[in-house]
């Protein structure tokens, strides 16, 4: 079991507000997450990396993909309502962009 897991919990809705999980114990402090995150979710505090703004995470997956020590987990994917609604209506799990979005 990982010690020091920071799960992003929101007391307001009684559950996680997003899927971002940071395992500080695995971090080798390379600073990659500081560079790639477009929402400044991670911050350097002295020598350590810390989740500074977890609620701002938009689950783009950049940090997980570029962390060399698997210290970050996040379930990334298309965060587009119309694509998700279309997938749900078709009874599909995979959410893909149509050609009308994302340009």
């Amino acid at each position, binding site marked *: 079991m990982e010690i020091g897991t920071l799960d992003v919990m929101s007391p307001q809705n009684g559950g996680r507000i997003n899927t971002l999980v940071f395992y500080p114990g695995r971090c080798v402090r390379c600073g990659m997450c500081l560079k790639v*995150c477009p929402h400044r979710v991670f911050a350097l505090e002295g020598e350590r990396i810390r989740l500074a703004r977890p609620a701002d995470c938009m689950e783009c997956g950049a940090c997980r*993909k570029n962390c060399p020590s698997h210290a970050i987990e996040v379930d*990334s994917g298309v965060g587009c309502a119309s694509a998700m609604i279309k997938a749900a209506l078709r009874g599909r799990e995979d959410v893909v962009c149509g050609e009308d979005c994302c340009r």
Partner: protein
Amino acid sequence: MEEGYSQEVMRTTATLGRKEAWDHAKARMGIARMEHRVRPGLYALGEPTRSSPVLVTANYSLSFDALRSSLPGRDAWVLVLDTGGINVWCAAGKGTFGTEELVRAIEATKLSERVDGRTLILPQLGAPGVSAQEVHGATGFKVEYGPVRAEDLPFYLDRGECTDAMRTVRFDLRDRLVLAPVELRNHRWGLALLVLLAVLVPFYGLEVLVVALGGLLLFPALLPYLPGKDLSLRGMALGALLVTPFALFQLASGMDAATLLAVPAEFLLMVPLAGYLGLNFTGSTPFTSRTGVRREIFTYIPKMAAMAVLGAVIGGVALLVHWGWL
């Protein structure tokens, strides 16, 4: 246009002309979607030497042009990945601006034979698709992430680092409004139908048209000023705002039973319509997470559907009263 990576080094400049302006205008309007691409491969910007920096981008013409036009008077290599004409951020999300494609591009262009450096500068927004360590392992090239916006590249190239602001996505008025023409185009048939409806049923038709156009055009503009945190809620607030003048006008012209029923029915029908359009804007913002959107869908869609059904029932009763059948 020829397909695939060019074997030869191609030339480019930092100057954009009328041809590019026309191409960008069409791209912004959503016209000829698949034509806004450049040939993938290696470009010489200015007169690069073997030690000039190598910048990576997507083969969407707007991405490529933003990059080169931000570097007037500089010499650099530009490696254009084949993302199928999709911009960096969206292609990174889909994985086409990704580790595999980058490795393929490096090999196809024989990059390691053409430059001495072993560093690639990628736009930060390409990071969701690229694993820097995997690229390094496969090719020996080290991936560095530059700023989010191309305009900050000169700063980054001069100092080798970015400020926090350069690493953060914004979504200012200009970013939001630039989406409007494509939104209009995506909904063109629905809107045409509403225009027809407005001609056939002047008052209510116009009301629906105003709410729909408001949801598509005013919503992005007013986004930061609308109350609530969720996009659906903000959309519904805008819907209520837009219906109010229509309702006031009706109430001012007479308060018979039919009108007193019609007014709440309008709110119940129009507010969820605007809320739905707001919810759909999630795909365009760089702020919503998939978990957040899923939560919004589950929270608001049932409520909006219930409102609309109730509104339709009350509206039906209002019509019957108006026709004297009740």
